[in-house]
Structure formats: C-alpha cells, structure tokens
C-alpha cells in the first residue's frame, strides 16, 4: 500500500487532469505528491484504490490505467452519492487522498495463450479497461481479443478515444451496442446479453471477463452458461459498500470472503461455492 505503515492513512495526491467521459462519468488522472512513492508505486490489473476527499469521505474505484503506463493513475467515477458528487466538483490541481492498491487482480498470467472475451456495460468497462490495455501492451501473449461493450445511449459510452483506437486495430474485435435506436448511431442495437447470444463466441480456450450493472451480469452469466463456458473460465469483478478496504470493517463479505481483500476479482466457480444469498 503506497508505502504507508498505517493502512488507513491516504497518500496525498494531485489530480492532474479531469476528463468528462459521459454526462455523469468523469475520469481523473492522479499523481502521488511524493515523487519517490509515485516512482515506486506498483499494482496489478484489477486492483482498486480508495479516493478521499477530506471532509467528505472515501470511496472505492478501480485503477483503470494499466501498470504498463505509469505516468499517472486513472480512476473513473460515476456521480451517484456524496463522495462521487464531491469528486465531480474538483478541478485539475486539487488535492485528494489515495489508498492503493487494494484487493486481488485478474490472473493475467494464467490467461496467456488463450482467447479473451471482454463483456462490459456502462462504467463496468473501467476494470476491464485496465486489463485490455495491459494485454494490448503485451499483445503477443494472448490470442483473439473480443470486446462486447454497450451502454444505454452512445453518449453514455466511456473511453471514447480508446474505443476509436480499438475499433481500428486489426488485432481487436470490438463490438459496440446501445440499448435503443439513437440518431446517428449505425452500429449494433440491443442489450449486451442479447448481443453476446448473437455473437455466440466459442468457449474452448477462451476466458470471459464481465463487469457491468448487476442485471447485465446476471444475464451475461446465463448467456455464457448456454454457450458452455465452464464456471472457472468466467471472471467478474464485484462491487460492494466498503469502508476499510483491508478486510476488517465487516460489510463487503460474501460468506467468509471479503470483496475488498479476497476480491474484487472472482471466478464464477468461486462465487458458486459461497453461501447462498437467498
């Protein structure tokens, strides 16, 4: 953790750039104030961090820039509650606190030599983005990369510059969709799970990684099961209300697993082994 012996103590950091991704999502490029700590900062794709606005509080966000690009740490924030609204109110140059990295990460070593299928919805592309960029920076290690990404409307699609780039790459198969018809939109129309069904990717030698709204994840998991994806080949990254981020405060547990420390990345097989939620 950012080199602090006290896991609750945030590292002071400066927001160097604010990017408006969508009408309610902003991305923040963050640099730790201590140049030594920034230079020595290490994390793995999928790990998260807690951002602090002192006087308002802390919330958890995934670091969605990859460890292969360390000029800054990128966090994307959807305006929803108190902390996220306060974050949306900050300017370039403002001071925030960062506690990172927290949690586990995508087993990208085990994915080498396999086809990778990303399925994302809305802000759910954020954690996938870290891994996508990491894999593109190590492209030779992975076989076919397919990205199915959707949002309600075209303006709600995140990381539009990335999408443009991925669309042009011959080594990435990007499929974009929006829920309903929209003026000027000429690509796919339909919910992400429906598009997944239409595309019907092969399960053999393929790892599927999904993140998005809970309802999308639910139907994507069903869709992947129909396509015969085994539960150990399906990965997701979970969200929960968190406070400490280090497995102590007791609110993000699923049985004896803590989303903040044992997760946020789980295989569907692991999730199925946890006590029922009913």
């Amino acid at each position: 953790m950012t080199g602090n012996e006290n896991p609750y103590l945030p590292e002071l950091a400066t927001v160097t750039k604010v990017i408006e991704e969508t009408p309610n999502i902003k991305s923040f490029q963050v640099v730790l104030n201590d140049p030594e700590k920034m230079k020595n900062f290490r994390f793995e794709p999928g790990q998260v961090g807690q951002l602090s606005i002192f006087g308002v509080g802390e919330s958890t966000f995934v670091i969605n820039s990859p460890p292969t690009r360390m000029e800054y740490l990128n966090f994307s924030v959807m305006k929803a509650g108190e902390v996220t609204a306060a974050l949306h109110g900050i300017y370039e140059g403002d001071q925030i606190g960062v506690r990172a990295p927290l949690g586990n990460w995508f087993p990208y070593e085990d994915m080498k030599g396999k086809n990778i299928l990303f399925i994302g919805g809305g802000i759910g592309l954020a954690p996938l983005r870290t891994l996508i960029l990491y894999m593109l920076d190590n492209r030779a290690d992975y076989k076919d990369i397919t990205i199915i990404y959707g949002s309600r409307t075209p303006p709600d699609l995140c990381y539009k510059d990335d999408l443009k780039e991925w669309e042009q790459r011959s080594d990435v198969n990007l499929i974009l969709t929006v829920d309903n018809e929209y003026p000027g939109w000429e690509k796919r129309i339909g919910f992400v799970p429906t598009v997944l069904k239409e595309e019907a990717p092969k399960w053999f030698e393929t790892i599927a990684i999904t993140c998005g709204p809970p309802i999308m994840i639910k139907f994507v998991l069903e869709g992947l099961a129909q396509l015969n994806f085994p539960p150990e080949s399906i990965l997701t990254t979970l969200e929960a209300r968190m406070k400490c981020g280090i497995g102590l405060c007791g609110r993000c547990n699923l049985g004896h697993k803590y989303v903040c420390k044992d997760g946020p990345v789980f295989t569907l097989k692991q999730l199925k082994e946890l006590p029922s939620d009913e």
Partner: protein
Amino acid sequence: MADTGYLPKEKIKDFVEALGKDATVYAPCLEGDTIIFRQYTPDKEISLDRPANTPPKAAIYPQCETLFSYEYKKDAATPQKMDVELEVNADFPKAVVFGGRPCDAKGFVVIDRVFVDTDTADPYYRKRRENTTIITKCCNGPSAGCFCVAVGGGPAHSEGSDVLMTEVDGGYYLEAVTEKGKAALGLPMVQDGASYQAKAKQTQEKATVAVKNPFPADATQKVSPELFDHGDFWQQVVSKCISCGACTFLCPTCYCFNITDEQGITKGQRIRTWDSCMFNHFTLETSGHNPRPTKYKRFRNRVGHKFYYYPEKYDGAIACCGCGRCIRYCPVSVDISEIVGYLKDPKADPKKWTVQNTKAAKD
C-alpha cells in the same frame, strides 16, 4: 515478579489506584443498577459481583476514535492552491482492564485474529492491545444466558488475560498468565498466595461444571450448511428481532466499524466508530442495491460470521465468547445459543422448517 498472589477484598481500591499510577484503568463501575466499564476515578464504585452489562471492549477498541486529522492550508504564494496536511492519531496510553470476565478477555482474542494477525494490521487496535494489561476475574458460576463452555471458553479460561483472579476467603487468589501479569503481581498490596491455590482451583472447577451447554448433546462441530442456507429457517427464528443492534454493541467479539469525516471549516478528523451489521444501511449501496436487504439476511450474516464464516477462516475458532449479553439484554429475547443449537443439531432438517413456517403462518 511473582507468579501468584493474594489480594484481600478491602485492598481492591488500593490495588486499582496503584495500577492507575502509570496507566488508565478501566473497571466495572456500578451506576444505578447497571455495571458499566468506565475509566476508573476514585469517586467510582467498582463492582465485581456479576458480569458487567457492557464488555470492556472499548478500552482497547473505542466506540469512536480519530484515525487522523486533516487540515486544508492555503498556499500564500499561489492563492488558488489549497494544500492538505494530515496528522495521524498516535495516542495509545498504557492501560489496564480490571475485573472483566474470561469471556471478555477471549473477546479480544477473537478480534486479535482479524485486526492483528493479518498483513494489514490495524495500528490503533494493535498498539492499544500491546499497551493494555488485562486482569480478569474468574466467575464463581454462570449468569443467566451464559454458555462460555460451549464455545471453547470457561469461567476460569485464561486465554487473552494477563492475570486471573479467583474469589477465595475474603479476597482473590491471583495467577499471572503472562509477563505483563507478573509485573502487576509485584505491587506491594499483593500478598503471598500459595496457601490459597488449592481452594481457588476448587472454586474454578465448581464454576466450570455449573455452566450449561445449550447445544444438543450430540451436536456436530460445525453448523449445518443446508439449514444455514434455508431462508425459511431464518425468517422463523428471527421474526421477533427488532433490528435494534443492542446485541452487536454489547458483544465482546463484534468489531464491525464505520469510517466517516467530521468536518469543521478548514479542518476535521477522519473517525472510526462501531457499526452494526443488524442495520439496513450497513450494506446499503449508493445505487439503492442492498446485498442484505432483509432482517433475516442480516441476522444470518451475524450468526454466520460468528459460527460459520469465521471458523472457516481461522481454523475452527468460533467468534463468540458465550458471555450471554446478547441474550440477557435483547429487548425481545432472541437467543443466539438456541438458534446455533438448531444449526448444530445433527438431525437438523431444512424441510421441517418449511412445515413449521407454514404452520405458524396458518395459526
């Protein structure tokens, strides 16, 4: 430094005041008809007659504490810029917990596994724990609702304590459990205890056999996962719970917390406060989604944490010390030992609970 000693009852106050010379002493103090752990001052009346209503948990893990302070500072050279300064709370005075019971001491052992024996230890809890000496009074017998023996404890269990005190002949026989405890036995009012050892042993044994085990005689070591997963079972056993959270606030082993910022104009504190998994907002997310949206799911998580999830993580150790406070002080008499008894019953049948539930609904 002595291993054993004897303290006459009339010397208790002197002993506590001597301990308080270089430490904060927390002791069970009589207030009206309740006994509450307080920071000891000479005007307070210590009572060792029965287990205190509250556990001494707050001595090491305060109900509310500052993690760090922050201050926004204006940069004179560039007036547009605001800097932030942080100052960590490092105030961990030496302390003594005097007159808790073996279950209370065991409560700290349960929290230690989570807060200390981890790669992300809680520095506040750990430092207070290191600086605290725990002097425990063995129980002469059980109070209503006690079930320490059923969860690996007992009225003379030494785990977590530095000194054990056993009531004998107008005073207390003292046994040092740790080096910290030996130091406390070196105080001048502590007399030689050798002649009281046999008597103390007898008292301890008598007390131990008097505590009843509420679980079925043929209870299995683990809870039944089938019954545990069964929503009907939980709906029925916790239907009377009013989600007040008293059980969690009085529990020596409950450690869930919240972190919030208390803001002044340009400065404030990030504070940590006890929280309760029995409250709806504990897991409520900003989106409105709540992974434990109903009372029975929250209650199941509490029981599960203590008797199912925690043991899975910590080699079978149970996160309940059997003090019975949640049973004694529950306003609607929910009995966790009864519920766990059902879960540990080898004949536990999830189907039976569906039938009972339907029947109850008809009545």
